[in-house]
């Protein structure tokens, strides 16, 4: 790009690398100083193709090929008008046909083919679909904002995660250092023989290692169990109501194919509790009664007595 020269003053581009090339609607380039010179004289025609120009239409050239610059400008203008999206169409085929239409328009305008007719087509389209265009414009800006938010959130998340891992590592190093220091202090001060102190220290060190290992295994969850990622913005549309049959509780019936199991309340009266250890006050504080264990044992015994018939 730097070896392109301004078509008018040719030498100036090589001599002054900071000079910028500008492009206008006809697709020809001019360096900045030549642009100023052109409009000082009052005349506003392109040097190469003699089309009338306005100073405000000159933009800094981004691409090496000025026709690409021209095309991108035209495309942006066209897309402002033809901004329908894929959900506006009933079938993929229609959407693709629409896209092809847009391409045709851009192509014609860029290569100066049937410019007038194309412009008329564009105006007609704009008039017909004015409200659709407005709606889509609003939707686009909203989507872009949402996207920006998401990206920002992601960046913040990354930063946070990085800081956290750094802090974690710092903490681990410090813990190790403290442990070593504690060992030295103990060896100095305490009267317990050195071998026992060393064993204790080794124990503590392995405990620390295990802790670190466990922490490494803890995976930061990023999604809820239902699959919704955390931090996702909530849709405010109402959730569709799904009518289902309500659950009603039916107690289970156990068939022992033999004598019925006595009820929990009857056990004391029937004398079963005499064969069971009485509950201590500590047990009863937690809600345990000897009847519970007894009932359980009786249920087990009864259910194994007779095989089911048939």
């Amino acid at each position, binding site marked *: *790009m730097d070896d392109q020269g301004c078509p008018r003053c040719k030498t100036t581009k090589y001599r002054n690398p900071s000079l910028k090339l500008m492009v206008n609607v006809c697709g020809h380039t001019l360096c900045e100083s030549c642009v100023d010179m052109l409009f000082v004289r009052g005349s506003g025609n392109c040097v190469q193709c003699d089309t009338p120009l306005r100073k405000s239409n000159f933009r800094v050239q*981004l*691409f*090496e*090929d000025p026709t*690409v610059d021209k*095309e*991108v400008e035209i*495309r*942006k203008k066209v*897309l402002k008008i033809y901004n329908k999206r894929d959900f506006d169409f009933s079938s*993929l*085929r229609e*959407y*693709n*046909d*629409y*896209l*092809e*239409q*847009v*391409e045709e328009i851009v*192509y014609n305008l860029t290569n100066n083919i049937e410019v007038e007719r194309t412009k008329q087509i564009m105006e007609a389209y704009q008039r017909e679909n004015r409200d659709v265009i407005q709606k889509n414009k609003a939707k686009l800006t909203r989507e872009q904002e949402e*996207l920006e938010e998401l*990206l920002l959130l992601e960046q913040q998340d*990354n930063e946070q*995660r990085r800081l956290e*891992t750094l802090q974690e590592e710092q903490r681990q190093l410090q813990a190790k250092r403290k442990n070593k220091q504690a060992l030295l202090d103990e060896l100095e001060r305490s009267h317990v023989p050195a071998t026992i102190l060393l064993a204790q220290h080794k124990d503590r060190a392995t405990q620390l290692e295990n802790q670190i290992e466990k922490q*490494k*295994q803890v*995976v930061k969850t990023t999604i809820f169990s239902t699959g919704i990622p955390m931090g996702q913005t909530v849709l405010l549309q109402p959730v569709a109501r799904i009518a289902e049959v309500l659950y009603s509780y039916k107690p289970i019936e156990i068939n022992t194919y033999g004598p019925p199991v006595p009820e929990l309340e009857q056990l004391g009266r029937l004398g079963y509790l005499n064969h069971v250890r009485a509950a201590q006050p500590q047990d009863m504080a937690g809600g345990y009664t000897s009847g519970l264990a007894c009932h359980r044992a009786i249920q087990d015994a009864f259910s194994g007595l007779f095989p089911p018939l048939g």
Partner: protein
Amino acid sequence: MKLNIEGLLVYFPYDYIYPEQYSYMLELKRTLDAKGHGVLEMPSGTGKTISLLSLIVAYQRAYPLEVTKLIYCSRTVPEIEKVVEELRKLMEYYSKEAGEKNNFLALALSSRKNLCVHPEIVHANIIVYSYHYLLDPKIADLVSKELAKKSVVVFDEAHNIDNVCIDSMSVNITRRTLDRSQANVETLQSTILKIKETDAAKLKEEYRRLVEGLKEANVARETDIYMSNPVLPDEVLQEAVPGSIRTAEHFVGFMKRFLEYLKARLRIHHVVQESAPQFLKDISEKVCIDRKPLRFCAERLRSLLRTLEIADIADFSAITLISNFATLVSTYSKGFTIIIEPFEDRTPTIANPVLHFSCMDPSIAIKPVFERFQSVIITSGTLSPLDIYPRILDFHPVTTASFTMTLARTCLCPLVVGRGNDQVAMTSKFETREDFAVIRNYGNLLLEMSAIVPDGIVAFFTSYIYMENIVASWYEQGILENVQRNKLIFIETPDAAETSMALEKYQEACENGRGAILLSVARGKVSEGIDFVHHFGRAVIMFGVPYVYTQSRILKARLEYLRDQFQIRENDFLTFDAMRHAAQCVGRAIRGKTDYGLMIFADKRYARADKRGKLPRWIQEHLTDGSLNLTIDETVQLSKHFLRQMAQPFKQDQLGLSLLTLEQLQSEEMLQKIAQIAHQV
């Protein structure tokens, strides 16, 4: 011999078998029974290939409906040839023993002239080819499309498989590529204009097809997306090409815009790193190119080249690369990063802008293989630590096992030399690389070794630059002169022809007289492919720990990704990578049970537990506490003792210990011992 492995009749074409081969086949059979994936580490030179082949062929014969095909993937053509040799032997044994004519068909695909075998692949039982035909999405489409689900895939020498996966999905674009692509696009444009005048019907036909959403038989089902994206629903894959790139002119204009955008991106003066979605957003803002047309770029280009009947596709490699890049960047949102560097780190004054589109997640390329095929076996001699591979490749193996060698006499002697005779620590750490004392100590080590080790010594350095620095210092210190009095010195260079000449002469020198020393680099061609059997490699010296260049931005991005996704610490991964290369290098010296060799790790960091623990089990076994952190004198003493022992004639009393006949194999105690060989992880 005919073996019975848990009820399966296996024909093994030799009369003797190593216990670890039996153990390996046992684990393999269990993996196949479970219809799952496996990671198996078995030391090199212990007959891994024949064990694999005989067991899987036997399984195929016994259960022809369960396992229809065996796909054996290897790295280099010599390895493929070796496999074919073993297979031939096995087939001869079968026809001799079973008496029946075997109707097995095995195919090996190695070079371009052996590729066009599509109809035969459908009938083949065993296919042998290189990794890339299965992993690289661009090639996999052409070659591996028809492979059935009920196949067993074996990746041999797979310790570098994550790098292969990453390379197959990464693209580097330089200014030159863009200029060539520009020329390609202009050629396309002129060809289109010409065809419009002479035979416009072809273009119209293509246009009609694209409108209808029909796809050509071969361009159909863009399998590079399908194989890489089994998660995409079928409707998305069957979608028609978007309307904005239907006609040839529009597509050419589209490519022009894309190229211009890339050129503008390369014109920066500082490093830029961004993710794929950010890149797409920028593209759509600057040149109004959306994601969907980008995704269909590669397919559309192929269709266009076909319609224009371009004879020489190779001329269009630049534009094909760009279209592949477009497809990749628009398909994947996670696991890739884009780094644009205005110049290389080491030459900051030369403007050389490069766009690196690098894959950070090896599991993306290999996921379709794991999901599509029933059993995938990853095997190599150096896969430690075994639990890292399932994590970075994101799969769940049913077996992970590491095997050791049963030896009649201990034929390897690994030693860690940490200090010189002046007690200065020897290390290739970055801060101490210029230290005069360290370099002198390394030279001393080499000198002493050259005096006591017979025949050939292979020495590995961590990088070419490091090697050149050290050798230059040695020359100044006069060490090289002293070494040359004992042995000749050969050196590996980045140039392939020079290296093969050096290798040839080294081998000649080892055959006659006092032998030679080969100085090479840990990630070079020598360490990856060449075996130093018997007298060609009696000692291997690893100078330093072969870490990759840790300042590379691509590597940093990859480490960050691994930390975020897989909770693998950066240090752990770098150490794992360095140790697997070190193990690969020292494993070059031992290629069989009668072979012996010294393995010298010349860096004090090898004595640390975290590095020692990452060596394969069959090396760690022989690394005792008494061989850690030695000085050069102590090393020389131990080496002399070892070499003298090894030089005694080997009385071939391996029988019963490390070599078994069928009867010995079936004894109870032997089976118990075998069960202990495999170490489950």
